[in-house]
């Protein structure tokens, strides 16, 4: 094992009179840079190779999602939520459906609840797998780990396509249930994929977990303290890597998560290695939940008979619904005036709020670390810019 690196100095080197030695260099990283995970820009001021100032700039992918949502029907917003975090369309759908169900007082049938849990955990698996692929690629391991990750992700996407008709833009959940029922063949295929996933993770962990280069690049880099994380209202794997036991699946127990037995993996220091490990362990827990859900799924309808597809008008009111998406707390805030479309529609995207500490984490690091730190935050620009 390699000892953790010492943090770098934050301030530029000064001479005796207090002026910096040499010149500061201001560069613009992105927006069209493959390492920025989309169209994200960072204005970085460098002293040599050390970051002294970092300003995140976003909005390149802004497409007026919230305003569009206020002008079209409740149902028509559902496919737009797929485009928020395009890696996890199933959890986006669930968060939105959950919010509207809370507002309209719809009950979800038992079988639909199980299907939702299965979909959400499959989403978590594929999101974390591909994230680790990207994360390792950001460190310079071009290709191989990412291709292994994508190979496995594809199996889950095939399952999604089989049931919802699309690999990524699933548009699967509806208010009061899910769109189509699962077949027995689909459940059997899912059982097989989940059963094989453990084997893949074993292999992946041997491949990466103690790789010396990965340890050197991640251990002790950009630690995020508990206080810092809570103050910046960071959620998801980033918060848990800092050692705060906060998982909405345990806190809110939305859906039927109270019925499943699983642990919440926690980190200690909140450095990059903890964030990596928390995600790997979360995948293990997801497999546990999936096995329980697949074993216990009951027969029955998948839609609330009270739910209306055409001309849906929930009663006037104000509601906030949230779930634990793979990236953190995904919340939808809706004010209804009883009309066919919401009066106010607002999203709390986890990856946008997790970005707020980017400068604190990057100060004093080298340029190459900035890329890895950004990779560890797990952002998707569709969600950040909306």
């Amino acid at each position: 094992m390699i000892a953790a690196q010492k943090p770098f100095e934050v301030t530029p080197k000064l001479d005796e009179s207090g002026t910096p030695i040499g010149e500061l260099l201001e560069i613009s990283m992105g927006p069209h840079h493959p390492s920025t995970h989309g169209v994200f820009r960072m204005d970085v001021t460098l002293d040599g190779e050390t970051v002294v100032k970092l300003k995140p700039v976003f909005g390149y992918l802004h497409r007026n999602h919230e305003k569009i949502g206020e002008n079209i029907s409740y149902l028509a917003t559902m496919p737009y939520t797929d485009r928020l975090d395009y890696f996890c369309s199933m959890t986006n759908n669930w968060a939105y459906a959950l919010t509207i169900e809370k507002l309209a007082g719809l009950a979800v049938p038992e079988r639909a609840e199980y299907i939702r849990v299965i979909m959400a955990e499959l989403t978590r698996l594929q999101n974390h797998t591909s994230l680790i692929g990207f994360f390792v690629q950001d460190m310079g391991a071009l290709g191989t780990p990412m291709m292994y990750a994508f190979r496995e992700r594809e199996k889950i996407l095939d399952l999604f396509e089989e049931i919802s008709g699309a690999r990524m833009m699933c548009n699967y959940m509806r208010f009061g249930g899910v769109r189509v029922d699962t077949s027995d063949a689909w459940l059997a295929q899912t059982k097989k994929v989940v059963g094989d996933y453990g084997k893949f993770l074993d292999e992946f962990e041997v491949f990466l977990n103690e790789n010396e280069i990965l340890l050197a690049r991640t251990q002790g880099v950009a630690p995020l303290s508990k206080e810092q994380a809570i103050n910046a209202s960071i959620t998801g794997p980033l918060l848990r890597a800092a050692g705060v036991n906060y998982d909405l699946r345990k806190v809110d127990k939305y859906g039927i998560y109270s019925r499943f037995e699983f642990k919440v993996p926690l980190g200690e220091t909140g450095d990059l290695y903890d964030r990596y490990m928390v995600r790997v362990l979360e995948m293990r827990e997801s497999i546990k939940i999936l096995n329980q859900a697949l074993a216990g799924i009951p027969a029955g309808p998948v839609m609330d008979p009270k739910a209306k597809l055409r001309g849906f008008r929930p009663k006037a009111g104000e509601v906030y619904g949230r779930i634990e998406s793979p990236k953190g707390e995904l919340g939808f805030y809706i004010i209804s005036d009883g009309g066919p479309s919401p009066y106010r529609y607002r999203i709390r995207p986890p990856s946008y709020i997790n970005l707020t500490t980017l400068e604190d984490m990057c100060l004093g690091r080298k340029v190459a670390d900035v890329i890895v730190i950004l990779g560890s935050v797990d952002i998707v620009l569709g969600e950040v810019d909306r």
Partner: protein
Amino acid sequence: MLGEQIIKGMAVTAKNFFGSYVSKDRLTTVQYPEERLTPKENTRQFPFLVFDGDDAEKGLRCVACQICEKECPPQCIYIVKSKDKKPDYKGQMQVFPVTFDIDISVCMSCSICVEVCPFESIKMNNEFELSTDDRFKGLLLTKKELAKPNSYYQQIHPQDAKDSDAVIAAEIVKAEAKAKAAAEAKAKADAEAKAKAATAAAAAPVGTPPANPPTPPPAAK
């Protein structure tokens, strides 16, 4: 030892590399376009309009109710209603779309139009190789290009088509039963009215007009 774990990782890479020659699980790529996967049953790309029989004009199921136009999230459907009517599959006189355009450069393949359609008339196609060098006309599908026979739908989505055919068969049976009941009711009402008129005429030859016969329900066809 420094580098021990890297060597272990390399062993995994080697396992995957050599495994790709023997194991289907480790080599999953398909050499498109020479090799193609069969599309999945539920795959959805862009919508098309279903018609029954051979004539696309006559058999088109769409009755231009404009629900899909209203519910479409990116508003890519454009419908103009007809002034005159034509019989639909149930034999009822219905308006039909004179213009039915879908701009597939705007369409987001969400299949909401399919879900909200009460007449089983708009369905999702699974054709995806639609690239064209004409960015306006090439991507604006008109009624003529959108209309596809029911046999095509049965071919691409066998299970869904079966369900949809069952729904339509049930509708037709219901409509026929209704028409039969209406015809019987009309015949009965006519007979009653006749009898009443006859008795009234016999009882009071002068004055008193016959009581109004109950208005017959509108007969189908």
